[in-house]
Structures are given as C-alpha cells and as structure tokens.
C-alpha cells in the first residue's frame, strides 16, 4: 500500500510540476473566457461587424418601391432603369448586389434574381427572402381587404412553462435550458476520460519503451504500478479541474467588475433591446419569455447536490473504468503510433454515448434506449449525467452506480492481466487474439 502511495505521488508530482501543466491550467480558462467574450460580442454587436450592404432593386412590378425598409445592414435603392441598363450601372456603381424582381403573380413569384460580384451570404438571402415574403403576404392581404396592422396585432408568441409534480405536492419548474447542464457535465466527463485516459496510456508506454519497467516491477507488483499511475493521473485531472474552476471564477469576477455588471444580465438586457427592434415576428416577446431569465430561473430549481454528487461519482467511475483499458493498451504497444488499432474499440462506446446523449437522450430522456445507455457501465457515466436533470428514479441511479462499480472492477482486473504480460513484451505488435491469450497466462 505504501508503495502505491509512492507511485501516486510520483505520477502526480511529475505531471503537476511540468510547465505545460501550468500553461494549460491557467491558459485554458483565459482562452475560454476570450472565446466566450468573442461569442458574446458577436451576438450583441454582430451586426456592427458586418458592413452594411447596398442593394439596387429593379422592380418590373412597379409595386415594391419604397416598401423595403432599410436596416442597419441593408440599404435598398430602387432603379428606374431596366435590368440590362441597371446591370451596366451596377458594375460602375458602388452597390453590392442587384436584386431583380420580374413581373410575377402573387401566388407564384418566380424568376427573382440576385446579382453581385461576390456570392451573397445565406443570411443576407434569407433576410431578403423574408422581407419579400412578408411584402407579398401583405400585398395579398390588402388585395383581399384585410389591414396589415390588424394582422400584426393578432400575432402572439407562445412559450410553454414546464412544471414537475412531486409527491410532496411541490411544483418546481425545470426542463428547457436546464437540461443542457446535464449535457455539459456529460461533455466534461467525456473530455476528462479522453484526455487523462490517453495520459495513462502514454505513461505506460513511456515506462515500457524507456525500459525502466523491468526495474520497477522488480520492486513493486505490476498491479500496484498500474493502479498508482491511474490514481495519480486522476488526481492531476481533479487538480486541474479545481484550478480551472478557481481561475474561471476569479477571472469572471474580474471581468464583470471591469464591464460593470453581470454578463448574463447584460446579455439579457441587450438581447431584449435587440429583439424589440428586431424582426416583426419577435415583437411580441416580453420579459416572461426572456431566454436569459429562463435559464436563471430553471437553474435555481435544479437539485444541485444530487447533480454534483452524481457528477463526481460518474466522473471518477467512468475514468477508472476507461483508464484501466487505456493502461492495458499502453502496455501492449511499443510506441504511441501503434495505439490506433487498440484505441478504436475502447473509444467507440465513449464516442457513441456522447453522440447519443447530445442528440437523442436530451430529447427522449425516458426512452428505453436512454435507460439502457444510462445503465450499461461503458456508457452510463456520460448518458446518465445527461438524463439526471430531467428526473431519474433513484433505483435507476443506484443500479447504474452499482453496475459501474462492478464494471470498473471488471476492467481493472482485465487490464491488469494484459498489463503484466504486455509490459514485458517487445517487438511485434500483438494481435487481439494474443491479447486474449495473455488474459490466461499465469503471471
């Protein structure tokens, strides 16, 4: 036991002391903050980064002139000349695009063309299409005698509020944006298993190729060495996460002081102003359906103690299960470049569970597929975390955790068998059949 502690200590310190560890630990949060800053800036002020475009419109219907509203990005100018003349004028002029509206039936607008020296972005096309659709709709409505202002008043935006009924009679709102918290945890677990699992594999291969392994296992049992490495690296990962949280929170508070307010609030405020000036569709949006407020509201209803303790359990359980397999792979190969063939079967369930979680479970959290994904140990750490915010029966969580514990005992046993043989095998890359044989070797 004492020796395992020594190994854990070495694995931990040798990694934490590295410059690259400090760089990643402090660099990543800064990078993420910068990234989010950029994303927020784009969302809030995106229009301002986009140059305003001038569009010359040739309208053979003689109807649309003056009806296109200019926005910050789009400037419409009507041409009195025909298409051919306008085209010539366009090449000389400073307009960005030329929109041609041929004479068309209201029911069948066809032949509409956008000319330009550059390909217009699809957002711009979308924008113009939407404007045209509304204008044609209005044209039709006027033709049938309905006033457009009346129609706009009839438009209502609907948002469903979800409430859970529990046995104690309490009602708590959840779902919606909250569900993404679960998925976020799933993604964290997925990343952790991958990044640190591969570190375990590299560490094992390093000991093997540097040939120190023979010295080590003349002092300690291979199992102790493997477990020491797995646990030591897990602690490196936990340290890194902890530091990330600390650094992010610190940076966050510095940033919000600097900006002068909570970024989420800022976001909601400016989103609201944007929306109220925005397209007609969203005009009806009011403060109750404000997305930022919704997130804040539903976050406060989450069962955080449950969520966090499950996160920790699945985080560690999933890591132990997979890192043992990564250790086995590391022991079977002579260099990192040989790892592909063996990595594949190990990473398939991981990748599958993150894809299924983010595309399926998040939409159908109670389906049988979601259930089985969150019960089977190879997928449960990721799948269950996605499901938890939707409410999972306690027995399912307990069953899943018990199976996960058996799962990692199983993979550790399996990995230890391959490991103790693999670390002394050099030369030819083993086949899966040979790995199978190693399982049954007596030490």
């Amino acid at each position, binding site marked *: 036991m004492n020796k395992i502690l020594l190994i854990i200590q070495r694995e931990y310190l*040798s990694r934490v002391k590295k410059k690259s560890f400090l760089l990643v630990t402090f660099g990543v949060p800064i990078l993420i903050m910068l990234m989010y800053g950029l994303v927020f800036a784009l969302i809030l002020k995106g229009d301002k980064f986009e140059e305003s475009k001038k569009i010359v419109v040739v309208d053979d219907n003689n109807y649309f002139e003056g009806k296109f509203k200019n926005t910050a990005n789009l400037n419409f100018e009507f041409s009195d000349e025909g298409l051919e003349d306008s085209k010539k004028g366009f090449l000389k002029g400073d307009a960005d695009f030329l929109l041609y509206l041929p004479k068309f039936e209201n029911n069948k607008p066809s032949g509409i063309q956008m000319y330009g020296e550059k390909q217009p972005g699809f957002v711009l096309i979308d924008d113009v299409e939407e404007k045209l659709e509304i204008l044609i709709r209005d044209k039709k409505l006027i033709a049938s005698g309905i006033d457009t202002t009346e129609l706009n008043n009839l438009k209502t935006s609907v948002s469903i509020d979800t409430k859970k009924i529990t046995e104690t009679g309490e009602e708590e709102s959840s779902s919606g944006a909250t569900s993404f918290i679960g998925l976020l945890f799933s993604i964290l677990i997925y990343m952790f298993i991958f990044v640190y699992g591969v570190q375990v594999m590299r560490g094992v291969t390093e000991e093997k190729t*540097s040939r120190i392994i*023979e*010295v080590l296992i003349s*002092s*300690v049992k291979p199992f102790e060495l493997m477990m020491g490495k797995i646990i030591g690296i897990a602690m490196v990962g936990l340290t890194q996460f902890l530091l990330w949280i600390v650094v992010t929170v610190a940076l966050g508070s510095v940033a919000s002081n600097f900006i002068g307010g909570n970024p989420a609030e800022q976001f909601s405020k400016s989103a609201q102003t944007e929306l109220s000036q925005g397209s007609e569709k969203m005009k009806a949006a009011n403060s109750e359906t404000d997305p930022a407020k919704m997130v804040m509201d539903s976050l406060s209803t989450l069962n955080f103690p449950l969520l966090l303790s499950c996160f920790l359990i699945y985080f560690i359980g999933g890591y132990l299960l997979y890192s043992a397999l990564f250790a086995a792979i590391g022991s079977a190969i002579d260099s990192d470049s040989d790892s592909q063939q063996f990595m594949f079967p190990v990473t398939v369930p991981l990748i599958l569970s993150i894809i299924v979680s983010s595309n399926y479970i998040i939409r159908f959290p109670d389906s049988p597929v979601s259930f089985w994904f969150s019960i089977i140990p190879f997928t449960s750490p990721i799948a269950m975390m996605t499901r938890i915010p939707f409410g999972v029966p306690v027995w399912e969580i307990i069953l899943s955790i018990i199976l996960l514990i058996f799962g990692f005992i199983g993979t550790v046993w399996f990995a230890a068998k391959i490991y103790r043989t693999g670390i*002394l095998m050099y030369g030819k890359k083993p086949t899966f059949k040979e790995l199978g044989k190693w399982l049954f070797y*007596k*030490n």
Partner: protein
Amino acid sequence: MLEIKNIVKQYSGHRALNDVSMTIPKGKIFGLLGPNGAGKTSLIRIINQITAPDSGEVLFNGEKLSGKHISQIGYLPEERGLYKKMEIGEQMLYLAQLKGMSRSDAENKIRYWFKKMEIQTWWNKKVEELSKGMQQKVQFVSTVLHNPSLLILDEPFSGFDPINAEIIKNEILELNQNGATIIFSTHRMESVEELCDSIALLNKSEKILDGTVKEIKNSYKTNSFKVEYIGDLKNINGDFTFHFKVKSDEEMDGNRTAVFDLHSYQTANELLSALISRVQIVKFEEVIPSINDIFISSVN
C-alpha cells in the same frame, strides 16, 4: 544464498526453462552463462519475482522466495532504462523508496554513492541530458543503493568505456567483499574467469553445466602440455624412444611452441625428461581450457 529447484517455465509455444536447478553460494560471485535465448532472462525474472515459475521453487536463505525479499535484491537488467525527463536525484530517491528505504536513509545513501562515483553535480540533471555511459553509471548506483544482499547484474559492463568498466568492476568486487552475493550474467568470458567463483551454463532452456570455475576447468582438462623450446624436434616422428603424441608444433616469436596430448598413463614429468635430452626448454605449462572454450564446446 539461493537454491533454485526444478524450475519449469512455459510460454505459449515454447518452454523457457526446463527443470532447472542450481545453488548459488552465499558471498560468492556466480556466473550465469548461456547463449542468447537459453533462458537466462527468464530465470533472472523468476528470481526477481517479476514472473512466477509454472513449477519448482526458489529458496532465499532457506525460505521460500516472497515479497519480503524484494528489498534484499538489487537488479540491473540488461535493457537499461530510467525516466528520461526526471531529475536524477529525485529518481534515485523514488527507486530507493520503492525498495523499501526511508526517504532520509535513501538520501544519505545517494549522497554517499554520488560522491564515490564523483557524480555529485548530477543531482538536478535529467537523465536525457547524460551520455549513455553516464546513464549506465546512474543506473548501477540505483541498483546498489539499498545495500542488497543479492545483486543480479545482467551484462553490467556493456556500454561502459574501459575506465568506467574498471570502476564498476572494482565496485562489484568491493560489494562482494562486504558480503553481497552476486549473480552475474554475461557473454564476456574473460570477465567471468576474472570475477566468478562458480558458474552455471544454460543452453536451450536446460542447465548443462555448473560448479566452481576451477572444478569445471579441471574437468575439461585434456592432459595437454605446451612447451616453448629452442632446438629441433623435426625428426621426432622417426624416434621410437619418444612416445608422446605431438598435437602441434610451430614457430612463434623466434622460438618454437609445441603442444603434446598425453595419454592418461603418461605424466608431465615423463614428457619433460624426454624433452630435456632433445631441446632447450624455455617454458612448460599445462593447457587449461578457457571458460570460453568450454562454453563453445558445451553449447555445440
């Protein structure tokens, strides 16, 4: 010190050790010899408890070999290796502690050995900064740090220049004089003759020979004698009063050297007196086979 009894080790497809037994006497230097693939490494790994035999047992000072003996064994594998990116001092501390030493004991020992090897300045260096020979030196120190009573050295001189090889050889002898038993696996026969008290020869998974170097050499003697002389033995074949078989006779460095194979009933004195009356003798010695000769003739 070590009793190896009827060890069998089977790997898939081939048997690495087939009923191998030998005794390694306490306080001696024991040579474990054999061509590549004979089973030396398999046997060494069993003694180090890296692998377990399929059958048979190993007794360490009369006790069945177990985990508690690990701290009494020092092992220098043929394929050397250390953590390349770890500082040497830290690395030595780690390896010593894995062998069961306390941190402070280990630190004192390391300082003692570093001073002895004149490598004190290497403490904070990384292994990758050292030349191969220097790495070997560090590795040797890591093997002997915990003062093992049994030292297993697999090709200890490979990678050393003659000066450092001499230093290491003297250290090995000193450790031996201080009571350590040494198992020495090598292909370099001249160092076997120089260092080993007794040897065992493995070939094709079996032990084919063991005993003290002296005994083995004596048992391989062919009762041959080499004579360096001045004079002429040319017409000796027609001389019916000379009853000794000449194996070879050639000129060497101005004098002639002849080798005679004696029958079991003939003695060296008889040969000598027969020669004295015919030529002037410069040198007379018994031909004793070298371990190298014995190795080659036994393996073939």
